């Protein structure tokens, strides 16, 4: 045998992180686009939740204005919670989730793209809808800024934490309620600081501290949550 022939060629390198991310994003966005009607449902849900409160609490502007930050926060939180179940379920049902687990690209990186799409599709429209929701609840104009800021930082946090729980429960049949029950205790700190910041701003108290805490949490979870979700997927599927 000719000794100059290489005995073993090195394996072809896998796709780069960038191209894998782009492929994942394109796929997920295309899937969402094909069912774009479904993407409107969280918006309608949040609108209806917000509408429930004036009907239940009465029409007084002062009462509504006082509860407005919390109600908007809860409406956005619940709307995001309801969409978490679909994060991995579609891929589980057609087998592509197992293919993702086998991918040469780190699973956490792919999961991060999935979470990004989830936030873009379910929370970003809600964020844009927030001024309308705030108006329905007679939120004072001055508080709209703090509210949008707290939601802008809080909703990605909710998506990240929710994704970990969604990954953990992915194989369980009819896990919707269980997912909510497991995710809500982990959502509570985000809600406390997010809504609390707006309430504090309304009372003239310092409120940026809570915002900084949310930002710090977001910085940490952007790295940790995809890793945790990837681990949870492996645990749930093996």
């Amino acid at each position, binding site marked *: 045998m000719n000794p100059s022939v290489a005995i073993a060629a090195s394996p072809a390198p896998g796709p780069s992180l960038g191209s894998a991310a782009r492929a994942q994003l394109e796929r997920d966005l295309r899937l969402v686009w094909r069912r774009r009607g479904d993407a409107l449902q969280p918006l309608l849900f949040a609108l209806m939740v917000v509408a429930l409160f004036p009907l239940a609490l009465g029409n007084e502007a002062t009462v509504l204005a006082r509860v407005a930050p919390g109600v908007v926060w809860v409406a956005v939180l619940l709307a995001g919670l309801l969409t978490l179940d679909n994060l991995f379920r579609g891929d589980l049902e057609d087998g592509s989730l197992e293919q993702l687990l086998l991918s040469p690209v780190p699973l956490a990186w792919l999961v991060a793209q999935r979470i990004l799409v989830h936030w873009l599709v379910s929370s970003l429209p809600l964020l844009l809808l927030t001024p309308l929701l705030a108006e329905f609840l007679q939120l004072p104009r001055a508080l709209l800024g703090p509210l949008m800021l707290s939601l802008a930082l809080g909703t990605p946090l909710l998506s990240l934490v929710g994704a970990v729980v969604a990954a*953990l429960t992915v194989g*369980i049949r009819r896990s919707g309620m269980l997912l909510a*029950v*497991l995710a809500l*205790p982990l959502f509570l*700190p985000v809600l406390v600081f997010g809504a609390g910041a707006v309430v504090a701003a309304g009372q003239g108290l310092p409120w940026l501290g809570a915002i900084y805490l949310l930002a710090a949490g977001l910085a940490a979870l952007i790295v940790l949550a995809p890793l945790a979700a990837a681990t949870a997927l492996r*645990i*749930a599927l093996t």
Partner: protein
Amino acid sequence: MNRLILWFNQTGSPPNFDRFAARWTPWAFAIALVSLAIGLYGALFEVPADYKQGESFRILYIHVPAAWMSLFIFVVMAAQAIIALVWRIKLCEILAMACAPIGAAFTLITLASGSIWGKPTWGTWWTWDPRLTSELVLLFLYLGVIGLYNAIEDRRAAARAAAFLAVIGLVNVPIVHFAVNWWNTLHQGETIRLIGPSKMDPSMMWPLLATALGTKAWFVGSLLQRARVMNLEQETGKAWVGQAMGDASRED
């Protein structure tokens, strides 16, 4: 050290653990009952009434050990969970899952006794201050671990998933502990310290130490008891289970 590791390895095998648990459970409960009896007797009859709160402060001797246990058990559960996830030791999976209902029970006692104590002291059954809220979240986390464990059919996969949840939930434990330092809360601050002087008069302290010891011993007994049953259930097809059960299943 080698003897210790050897002992762990041997006791960790299912039939050995069954014998170990069956043997030591009664002792643990005996110690627990004696300690609790001494502590609660002291709490009710020996200790003088508090000059500000009167008789209701005697609830402290239930509330504080229960609160300590609610946090301690979560840490033990998470430690077992990490071992179970990393090394996949079946017994650690069982021990972690057995911790959850006991921890939930102590958390419930903490919340309820605290609520009962709060009514005469603060005038309210409940308030959403950080310590109470985070303790309530702790209860939800325990129930979540139990719920997730029960939702998956395969026992080992279920234990691994619930164990992961327990590890994630561990972040709540320091929040509960430090809540009274980080926020302005209605709940009183640190009175008892592990290291350094405590602010409680020794004449009032000793029943607390007795009930604290009693609840710890109770936890050991209950953990062994629950883990033993789970171990038997999961190994039920094996020959050693038939022998251990005195061949009650065979009727000749």
